[in-house]
């Protein structure tokens, strides 16, 4: 046995509470106390294992450190796949980390640049539930669950596929829960607590299986950290035995073999303080031990000492005979008894296994030293422009706008996107880097009238400063320091002489110390509430701030309802809309115009005029309102509108431009990427919309004009059946929603109608219902989001309204298809359906709550839900989403073993193999080739050996078709 204490593994002398070796053995993590925070550090393993690497300065020792925990970190654990690291600490939080590969090394700003992070580990989830310190975390064998335990006496099971969803909270311990472990097949989880009991819970229903209290004798050793190792077998053909290492508070470490009655080895005096955690290496021959004294030791055993480990198969056989098969986890091992009938299938299964094995290593565990080079080179270039070039012109290029209340707003330049795939990418917000950056971008609310203050001049700070409190609170420290001039420990900074020429200047600098560390008390110019310290003075100020804000709201809302007065139900309808749009209004006030032209909140067309028209005209629209249902845009002199998601394209409208001789015209200006065009119209322009292809405006007298992207008129004015309510463009499609609640969609390129004056009466059945959002897909399909949470699209081919989303849909709430979600792109599907349905995250949560629902019911609801999703995506002609949901549906069918439906899908996708003239079969669906879809489905089908005949059939026929 060799023993090594790598001194470079430390937390600057602070205690290390946990250590865990990455499953691929290339790195390990430590967790413990940091400077004023908890600390997690990821270290390179090779300098521990090889002396050469330890001496080689090019081999990094520390790979990444994370100071994000607010208090001491008690445990760090790698997921079995090695993709994630979970850490739990005294701050009651569990953080889940994932490696981000998009960027090169970084330093911790303000730390003097010494600590370069070779690898970038990002916190992808923060799990909050525990009300006390988190003591231990453990990943289930299949990485689908993460368990955590805490001093709040509970164990929480998290859905690792869908953080931060909680699957179960296990209550029953009467003392703090100190440790957790899963059985090797994931059928049980054991928790050990201060109440001198060990409880075993079933993963099937998360109920208590058994509670073991007898053998507990914790008199001298309250902290036993045990780590079961893999089964090893002795050289002689005897029983397999386990190897177990025990570290204890008496600072000794002992390694036990279950075949021996006394420990294999006991090491005393290895550390100055208690042993806190132990982690075995991959081959089972080495252990890392960490201690409260802040050091780490590595023990390396030889095979002679521990015996030969069993192979994985032998191990899993023992596991299965001991624990049985887990019902909750479907592993391929269970199917291993099935006979594989054809070589294709065999090959596929083998490939799959190989992939699974290579997967984690290839993806995220490459040797650190090697991939830093490539990563940094990636980071250095953005869209072909080097970072240096970008920086040179950043000030000129960066987009700066004014918000509605006149504040400066800068759109930051995105220099790297996160690639971890766990984030729902901001499809509408992120600013594309290339080209368009130079173009100007105007906020759609750039009205100069409402400027409350001019940010160009310094703001007098005294406006909202609390009177005496800060002077009394913070000054004395500085004053005292500056007066006596004694070097106190609070001023560790020695400024460089280049700046500070006279030594006398150093003394007053101490006076600034509090300025660096204390939050500013004066926060004028903030519409939001500054609420840092709950002192009376602050409270007072906040209250006054709130009071200040309120009148403005009233003003806005009242002018708002004025605007809507022409609408049919002046009292109830606008009020309700106001409530609905509460959020939108607030966003706007904070200076965030909504940019997503694809999903246009009605509030934009209604309220932005309201906010703008301080110089509102007295002239009203002279159109009589016959049984109006929808609100109309009010008249206004001028407005600006951002078009599509392209920030550089916007439309400006100026009404009542005097053209001489008493004539009044309206001017329409459109700017795209710096190129402008302009045209005039005879009537007053009420509303405008644009897409990448067309620009359209609705004028008074129900006229709708359409222009090409370059300003050429495409059609003579279209006479609308009633005044316009909302106008919208996507691609070549123009959608007009009139105040009489009729909807029309035209394809202006083909000059034909897509939807002809379709009434919304059928979907706006209830009297209180309004359209809350409208959407026009790329294929010209209009979608109406209603205030009751339902969304309908109008299918031109069926000439009918189809329900595509319902927020109260009980199917969506009961459906549970998490097991079928592909791990990576679970959240990544975007498109009209996703927009309409909003965040789908609630479904799983509900499903977890309804755990008691019989499996059959859940199956049925899930199937029904998935089918409706596939159908909705099809109706919306969203190919991307159709594919996503179809694959998900198929995967669910495969997992649950529904052969008939699966077969029907395959049959339709395959079509007739031998061409027959009478066939009605279409080879494509929403622009996707059906047979390509089938090819994608095949690997999914192949996952379940039960469907191997179907797999073979499809495979053979596809081959046949290919050969033809």
């Amino acid at each position, binding site marked *: 046995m060799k023993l090594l204490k790598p001194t470079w593994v430390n937390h600057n002398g602070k205690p290390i509470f946990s250590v865990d070796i990455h499953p691929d053995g290339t790195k390990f993590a430590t967790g413990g106390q940091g400077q004023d925070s908890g600390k997690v550090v990821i270290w390179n393993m090779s300098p521990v294992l090889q002396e050469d690497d330890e001496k080689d300065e090019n081999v990094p020792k520390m790979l990444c450190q994370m100071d994000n925990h607010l208090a001491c970190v008690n445990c760090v654990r790698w997921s079995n796949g090695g993709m994630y690291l979970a850490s739990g600490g005294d701050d009651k939080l569990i953080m889940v980390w994932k490696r981000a590969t998009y960027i090169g090394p970084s330093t911790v700003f303000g730390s003097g640049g010494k600590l370069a992070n070779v690898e970038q580990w990002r*916190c992808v989830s923060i799990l909050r539930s525990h009300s006390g310190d988190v003591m231990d975390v453990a990943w289930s064998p299949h990485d689908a669950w993460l368990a955590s335990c805490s001093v709040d006496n509970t164990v929480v099971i998290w859905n690792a596929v869908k953080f931060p969803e909680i699957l179960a909270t296990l209550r029953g311990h009467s003392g703090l829960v100190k440790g957790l472990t899963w059985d090797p097949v994931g059928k049980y989880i054991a928790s050990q607590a201060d109440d001198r009991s060990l409880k075993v819970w079933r993963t099937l229903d998360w109920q208590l299986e058994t509670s073991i209290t007898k053998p507990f004798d914790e008199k001298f050793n309250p902290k036993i950290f045990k780590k079961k190792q893999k089964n090893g077998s002795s050289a002689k053909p005897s029983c397999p035995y386990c190897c177990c290492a025990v570290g204890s508070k008496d600072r000794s470490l002992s390694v036990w073999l279950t075949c021996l009655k006394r420990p294999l080895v006991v090491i005393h005096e290895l550390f100055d303080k208690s042993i806190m955690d132990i982690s075995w290496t991959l081959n089972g021959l080495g252990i890392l031990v960490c201690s409260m004294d802040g050091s780490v030791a590595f023990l390396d055993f030889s095979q002679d000492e521990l015996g030969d480990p069993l192979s994985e198969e032998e191990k899993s056989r023992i596991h299965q005979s001991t624990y049985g098969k887990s019902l909750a986890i479907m592993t391929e091992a269970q199917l291993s008894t099935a006979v594989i009938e054809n070589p294709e299938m065999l090959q596929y299964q083998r490939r799959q296994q190989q992939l699974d094995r290579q997967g984690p290593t290839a993806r995220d565990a490459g040797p650190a030293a090697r991939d830093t080079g490539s990563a940094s080179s990636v980071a250095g270039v953005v869209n072909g422009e080097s970072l240096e070039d970008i920086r040179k012109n950043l000030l000129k290029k960066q987009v700066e706008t004014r918000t509605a209340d006149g504040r400066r707003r800068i759109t930051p330049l995105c220099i790297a996107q996160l690639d971890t795939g766990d984030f729902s990418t901001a499809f509408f917000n992120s600013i594309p880097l290339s080209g368009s950056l130079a173009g100007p971008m105007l906020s759609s609310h750039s009205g100069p009238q409402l400027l409350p203050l001019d940010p160009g001049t310094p703001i007098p700070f005294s406006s909202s400063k609390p009177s005496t409190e800060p002077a009394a609170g913070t000054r004395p420290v500085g004053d005292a320091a500056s007066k006596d001039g004694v070097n106190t420990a609070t001023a560790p900074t020695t400024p460089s002489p280049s700046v500070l020429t006279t030594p006398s200047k150093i003394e007053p600098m101490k006076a600034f110390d509090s300025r660096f560390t204390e939050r500013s008390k004066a926060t004028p110019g903030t519409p939001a*509430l500054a*609420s840092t310290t709950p002192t009376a003075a602050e409270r007072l100020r906040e209250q006054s701030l709130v009071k200040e804000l309120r009148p403005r709201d009233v003003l806005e809302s009242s002018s708002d309802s004025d605007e809507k007065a022409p609408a049919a139900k002046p009292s109830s309808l606008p009020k309700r809309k106001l409530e609905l749009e509460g959020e939108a209004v607030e966003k706007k006030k904070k200076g965030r115009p909504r940019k997503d032209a694809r999903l246009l909140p009605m509030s934009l067309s209604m309220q932005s005029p309201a906010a703008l028209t301080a110089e509102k005209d007295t002239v009203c629209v002279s159109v009589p309102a016959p049984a109006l249902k929808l609100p109309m845009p009010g008249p206004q002199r001028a407005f600006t509108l951002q078009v599509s998601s392209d920030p550089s394209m916007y439309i400006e409208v100026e009404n009542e431009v005097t053209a001489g001789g008493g004539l009044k015209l309206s001017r329409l200006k459109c700017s795209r990427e710096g190129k402008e065009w302009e045209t005039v119209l005879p009537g007053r322009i009420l509303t405008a919309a644009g897409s990448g292809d067309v620009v359209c405006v609705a004028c008074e007298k129900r006229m709708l004009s359409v222009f090409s992207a370059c300003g050429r008129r495409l059609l003579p004015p279209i006479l609308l059946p009633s005044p316009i309510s909302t106008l919208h463009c996507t691609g070549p499609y123009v959608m007009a929603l009139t105040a009489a609640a009729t909807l029309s969609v035209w394809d202006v390129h083909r000059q034909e109608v897509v939807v002809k004056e379709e009434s919304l009466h059928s979907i706006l059945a209830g009297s209180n219902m309004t359209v809350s959002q409208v959407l026009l897909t790329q294929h010209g399909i209009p979608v109406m989001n209603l205030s009751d949470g339902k969304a309908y699209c109008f299918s031109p081919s069926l000439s009918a309204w189809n329900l595509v989303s319902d927020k109260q849909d009980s199917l969506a709430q009961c459906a549970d298809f998490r097991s079928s979600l592909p791990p990576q792109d679970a959240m990544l599907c975007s498109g009209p359906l996703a927009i309409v349905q909003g965040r789908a995250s609630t479904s799983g949560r509900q499903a977890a709550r309804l755990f008691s629902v019989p499996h059959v019911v859940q199956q049925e609801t899930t199937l029904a839900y998935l089918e409706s999703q596939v159908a909705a995506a099809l109706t919306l002609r969203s190919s991307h989403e159709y594919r996503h949901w179809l694959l998900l549906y198929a995967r669910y069918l495969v997992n649950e073993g529904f052969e008939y439906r699966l077969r029907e899908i395959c049959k339709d996708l395959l079509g007739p193999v031998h061409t027959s003239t009478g066939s009605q079969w279409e080879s494509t669906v929403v622009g996707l080739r059906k047979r390509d879809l089938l090819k994608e489905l095949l690997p999914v089908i192949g996952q379940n050996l039960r469907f191997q005949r179907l797999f073979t059939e499809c495979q053979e026929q596809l081959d046949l078709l290919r050969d033809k």
Partner: protein
Amino acid sequence: MAKVSVLNVAVLENPSPFHSPFRFEISFECNEALADDLEWKIIYVGSAESEEFDQILDSVLVGPVPAGRHMFVFQADAPNPSLIPETDAVGVTVVLITCTYHGQEFIRVGYYVNNEYLSPELRENPPLKPDFSQLQRNILASNPRVTRFHINWDNNMDRLEAIENQDSSLGCGLPLSCTPIKGLGLPSCIPGLLPENSMDCI
């Protein structure tokens, strides 16, 4: 955990004449798209003696902020000399860059600033009334002092979810009058507001 971490602040055009604008190139990283804008401020400390002489040179909103690394240049006019006590015009002071989210300050970057006459004559015999046009401003860029504060980032989210779980007929939004006092009355946000300082300095 902070959703936004500042990666770097580069001080541009330093040293420079007193009257030229401040320019900081700020790089930051956001690990989750932010629902609202960040607010950045440059505060010039006019005098060590009292916070009363602080000048907020400018404040900007920065957004939208999707997940990823971002940078921008924050430019602000030089401080107003008439608001600086004459005795503090020459010498060392501090400029602070702060960032707030939902009105909560979560990072404060401070630099020492030295204002000095360029010409040796003026340096020897400084005029009684400071001549700001002759002053050169030098920011000690190599030594930023960074203080991070723990704030509640999820205020909004918690609320949204709370709304979702309510009766869905009400769940579409809140009455307008409630919106500006977001979070104030919620006890859930109070713990997040306790300053848990962590200071990273040399």
